């Protein structure tokens, strides 16, 4: 159902979503190839986060379809989407504030483990072994992202830039096929942004496909293989970063008529 050679990890087809009279996402089509980094850009209110929410199951589609590796995933609840292989971060970092850094990441291992209520209460031997594995695996991820030293700290006490990285770690713990990053560089300075860029590239190299919403143009140009531009809910351009940068419609939408 990919309609082509099957390297499309994600396919978004004719997706519509409205809120009341406002068309937040209007007939959007695009696809993401495996092992690539694709950026979704566009002015505020273009419908980017709504699109993420549609893909990750937080919102239901009004019309259209979304496929992951050829299988439909639209209108599936978020916790099931995670099990299908899509994980995400949030625009305003939704860490579990009452827990430590490593515990946050351990929640990411939830779908890769199975101890339930009874096993948990009885603390069976296999449960303890599984807990050990969950902890070790989480520490591995923190180490790769170079924040293992923060493991036992309360998540809410970290500086914002570090919190973002913890959210990455948590999302990666689910071993996703596709990682959705919602404005990962928002609120970061240039050094932190550069660090994030490095991390995202590392993530792609480990075999995870990345779809980013971003406003930071330097980040987008730097690391993306492809770019989709949304404006007022519609796709207005798609292609390589350099092409999109020169697209007249894109320039007009960002900078106004005179600059086109």
């Amino acid at each position, binding site marked *: 159902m990919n309609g082509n050679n099957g390297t499309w990890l994600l396919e978004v087809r004719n997706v519509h979503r409205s809120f009341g009279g406002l068309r937040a996402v209007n007939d959007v089509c695009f696809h993401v190839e495996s092992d690539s980094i694709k950026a979704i850009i566009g002015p505020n209110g273009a419908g980017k986060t709504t699109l993420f929410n549609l893909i*990750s199951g*937080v919102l239901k589609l009004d019309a259209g379809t979304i496929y992951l590796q050829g299988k439909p995933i639209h209108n599936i*609840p*978020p*916790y099931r*989407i*995670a*099990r299908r292989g899509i*994980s*995400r971060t*949030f625009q305003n970092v*939704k*860490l*579990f*504030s*009452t*827990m430590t850094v490593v*515990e*946050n990441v*351990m*929640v*990411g291992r*939830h*779908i890769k*483990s*199975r*101890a*339930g*209520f009874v*096993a*948990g*209460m*009885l*603390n069976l031997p296999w*449960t303890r072994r*599984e*807990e050990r594995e*969950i902890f070790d695996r989480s520490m591995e991820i923190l180490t790769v992202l170079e924040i293992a030293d923060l493991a036992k700290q309360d998540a809410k006490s970290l500086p914002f830039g570090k919190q973002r990285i913890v959210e990455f770690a*948590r*999302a990666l*713990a*689910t071993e996703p096929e596709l990682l959705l990053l919602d404005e990962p560089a928002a609120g970061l300075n240039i050094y932190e942004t550069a660090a994030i860029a490095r991390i995202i590239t590392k993530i792609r190299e480990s075999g995870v496909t990345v779809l980013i919403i971003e406003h930071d143009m330097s980040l987008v140009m730097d690391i993306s293989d492809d770019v989709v531009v949304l404006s007022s809910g519609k796709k207005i351009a798609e292609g390589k970063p350099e092409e999109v940068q020169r697209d007249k419609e894109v320039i007009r939408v960002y900078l106004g008529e005179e600059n086109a």
Partner: protein
Amino acid sequence: MSIRKYIPVITLIAFIILFQLITGALGKEYFLTQLTMSAYYSLVAIGLCILMGYAGQISIGHAAFFAMGGYTASVLTTFNLLPLSGSAWVQLLMKVGLTTIRKNPYGMEILHITPWISLLIAIAITALVAFLIGIPILRLKGHYLAMATLGFGSIVYRIVLGSGIFGEADGISEVPAFNILPQLSVSGQMSLRVENYYIAWFVVVLGMVLLLNLINSRVGRALRSIHGSEDAANSMGVNTARYKLFVFVLSAVFASVGGVLLTHYNGGIGPSEAGVMKSVRYVAIVAVGGMANLWGALIMGVTLNFLSLRGYFGSYDDAFFGIMLILIMLFAPDGILRKENINRFYQFLGVQWKIIQLRLQKQKGDSA
């Protein structure tokens, strides 16, 4: 398996034994009665703590589950099946060993369901009701959920208050002792006071161990993640709706077990056990102890219930818990038994000790 993490439980057991010995030595054995009752009430508190503190869901109707347990046990163990002993299904129950015969206080013979079976039935009924109620209302948040639980509690209260089978305003009395094992029974008899004290606290310790294990497990983490951010939890694959429901049912079961055992201990139950004042009391206890502090809920559950049962709050009993809840919400919404507060308390003690030491030194210096 490190012994370190069992220290709190071992300390608890030590305190339990210590209290019993002390009250015996001081000739104040009657304290044991209130400590036993407090233990059963604390079962409700620790179950509610998991729901409120860890899963972050409020319930101001939890007394209803306690009452469901107690009333079910009461009805099943006092309903005389003897007149019906001719019918086939009663014969079947007797054959399978689900019934027992005893003499009630008036010397009359009664055939009724055994307490063990009635306990299981009580748990099953409570779990089922909690499950069915939970499905719709746990979709609600914040004060909407609170109101729904309040409504549910009111319904149960009115049912037990108004139904003949539940004894209306008088409740049910003459509930027999619960023979757990041949030599061990939950009963209000004076001679069995010490025994019952240990039975009650054994159940509480067991409950604590199970819940402490749960908190530190994958499920416990999932619950805390729901409390932290339900959206993020969902996106990480946690089926938040299902977990909230299971925790709700678990906390209801804890409450109903407390209800069953206390009813056998007291020999009866009344509609006030289902009332909103009791529900508020449980919430107040969990709040004061620190919402997400299981030990806090236990300590406060025992302490406050003990004081209440000993009559220290006089006729202002219910008002006390209400006022306490308001004060806690205003000044210490995370409870008072929190780590930071305890550390601050130790620091305070440390500073006082230093001051005393310096004063003593100065005195020595002056007189030298």
